[in-house]
């Protein structure tokens, strides 16, 4: 039973790691293109998600990916692997939260700008259908798993 769960989680972690890496790569490409090579279009919409060219985000996504892969390297039934999963998913959740906060802030900004008479539109979907959010939700499940597993271990 336990082994089964571990295998499942490992697979999810592995897949998530690949996707984080993939989107990070696209983001990096986009940033390079947009900054240094104007004229060549950037890939902004991949697999249903909007991908901006944010270099900082690239670092974050790559880090998460590394940690997820690390959890596989150290094996999830080992404390070391579990620690990697915990931190990796935690950062994933942090990115999710951050992005949600940004969306809220953008909405608030629209509100403020209306005060000065400007009427603007804001398409929140563009900011919500992002890898940080979708992959972040998956990270949330991995995070919950880690927390439960760790509670088990540290209370022994």
């Amino acid at each position: 039973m336990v082994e089964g769960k571990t295998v499942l989680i490992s697979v999810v972690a592995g897949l998530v790691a690949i996707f984080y890496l993939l989107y990070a790569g696209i983001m990096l490409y986009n940033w390079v293109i947009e900054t240094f090579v104007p004229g060549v279009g950037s890939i902004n919409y991949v697999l249903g998600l909007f991908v901006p060219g944010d270099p900082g985000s690239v670092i974050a996504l790559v880090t998460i990916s590394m940690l997820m892969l690390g959890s596989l390297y150290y094996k999830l039934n080992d404390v070391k692997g579990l620690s990697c999963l915990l931190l990796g998913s935690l950062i994933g959740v942090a990115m999710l939260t951050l992005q949600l906060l940004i969306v809220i802030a953008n909405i608030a900004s629209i509100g403020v700008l209306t005060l000065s008479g400007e009427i603007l539109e804001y398409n929140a979907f563009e900011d919500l259908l992002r890898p940080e959010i979708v992959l972040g939700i998956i990270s949330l499940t991995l995070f919950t798993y880690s927390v439960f597993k760790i509670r088990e271990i540290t209370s022994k």
Partner: protein
Amino acid sequence: MLFLAVKNQNPQKLSRKIKIALAGNPNVGKSVIFNELTGGKAWVGNWPGTTVEKKVGKTKIDGYEVEVLDLPGIYSLTAYSLDELAARNGIVEEKPDVIIDIANAANFERSLYLTISLLEMGTNVIVALNMIDLAEAQGYKIDAEKLSKLLGIPVVPTIAIKGYGIDELKETIIKSLKIKRIPEKIVDYGDFVETEIRKIETIIEKDSKLSKKYLPRWFAIKLLEGDKDVEKRIEKSPFADEILKQTQKSRKMLDQTLQKDVEEYIAEKRYEKALEIARECLKTVKTKPLTLTDMIDFVTTHKVFGIPIMLTMLYIAFKFAFDVAAPLCDLIDWFFGAFLYDLVANSTLPSIVKSFLGDGIITGVGSILVFLPNIAFLFLFLAFLEDIGYMTRAAFVVDKIMHKLGLTGKSIIPMILGFGCNVPAIMATRAIEDENDRKVTALVNPLMSCSARLPVYLILAGAFFAAYKGTAVLSMYVLGLILAIIMALFFRKLVFKGPSAGFVMELPPYMMPLVKNIVIKTWERSKRFLFKAGTVILLAAILVWVLSITGPSGYIGVEALEDPYLLEKSWVGVLGHFLEQIFSPMGWDWRAAAALFFGFVAKEVVVAAMAMLYGAGGEETLPGILAGLFTPLSAYAYMAFVLIYVPCLATLAAIRSELGMKYALFALIYEIVLAYLVAVGIVFIGHLLGLS
């Protein structure tokens, strides 16, 4: 029993005003207890004659007015560290009625060392045994009653962040007022040393003034340890020579008999006593369990993962500080730039008053406050990382690289703070132990592009680099970083040479921070930006205003703010034309030069000054006007100049208060030279590349 408790004969004689001091190691929760007692409100200053921070708060307990003195976090009471010396002298000069020694149950032996040192001074100490929950999580329990018996003083178990034990602590404070303790020997240093102590003690007792101020035994021990500060204090004593002679004799004798340095011997004996007491009171409940902290640390200090995690935290900090705080900035911008400004403009006040209020004060204050959300949010996230315990791990992981760049692991916090505002950043360099490292970190800090320079970048980048606006701005930050590294290396290797004294850092377990504490910390730092920077910028805005409407020929009139031709006749115009000569290689006209001058006082003012000088109605029309007067190359050089030249006045003041006037002037000069060189360099290289 180490103390004889004697009841105070005349309790009525106790005034209703008392003074207590909080002592303890760093990271024991001292500030939490301080906040619990005083509500977080404190007067902050310096211990006289030092740069060590002194924090004083007030509270009421049982009808008494209590002054709460926060001593710096220390491990012992030697004369080797400024913090320790300040704490020691603070105790002697301020004479608190009770000292609360906050011991860390989770870091017990280390805490006890300080407790013993305090008892040796002969002060009235009570112990707050904090973090008992953490100790239990680490697998052991401490017998507070036994500890109390062994030390002879009250011990109150507390969990400060939960408020547990605080009431009992308050009661114990009042109770211990009424009991006068007669100190006895806490540490037995062995027959040889004790004999010598007694010899010196006897001479000290002959000086009634000295023995009233200091406990003779403590004084004698310190003399044997070779404490320089204590030696200074005997100078005025009639028995000074006798005391010193006996001390010398004793030290020589003991060095021989002990086959070891007396000072080392005494410190070790004291430490052994701490271990002894600890062992008697510590009860292991279970073998050290695997803790969450261990698990997290495995990853955060990992050879491979450590630095990426740190960079990620940095990214989140900035994204949070800029993107999430944006609506608040917009709100403030609207409030000052539109709402208040229009209010004044449409009022019926005389035009000079309107101008003073509108163009002077409102614009001035508004331009500062617009950044407050960004700075506050950055500090908030940083405070969160600090209180949760992560920043020490970040410093550990980053130290090696920082050294290669001329800095140190602990420089990371000031460097990050510097992106918000350089003023609190430079104050944060206090945490760096090594003098040279501290100096370099502080001197290089102004190259961290603070939020004040952002509007200049945005306006110029928006006007000249439209599509690449983001990149241009980013390149400024990167340029700042690169220059900081180059200058840091230059300073550390060639100017402030010498091996780094290094640091010792404790790694407390990760703990969920108290929202209250994070907010207080954020407020303290943001406050510095607000008030120190704010007052200066406000004055600057007024100064610009005054210099714009007056000139060598006298008062010109507020119309000058709207009419560039009139403006040229004002002081600002005179100044600008003078500076124009110097900046001719870059092709900046007199107005841009004049704006730079005002930026010296506070860099935020540059844009407002430019708007006024170019006769732009508001800042929205400025880009259009600038497009005709700069070229992309000269604009980029201008941005770089603003990045590098001169720390703003408030930053200079901060450098002066931390390092002294000499270094403040040095920073001023080196930066202006560097800025000029870089700006000229940019234009030169640009011309070589055929750009214009």
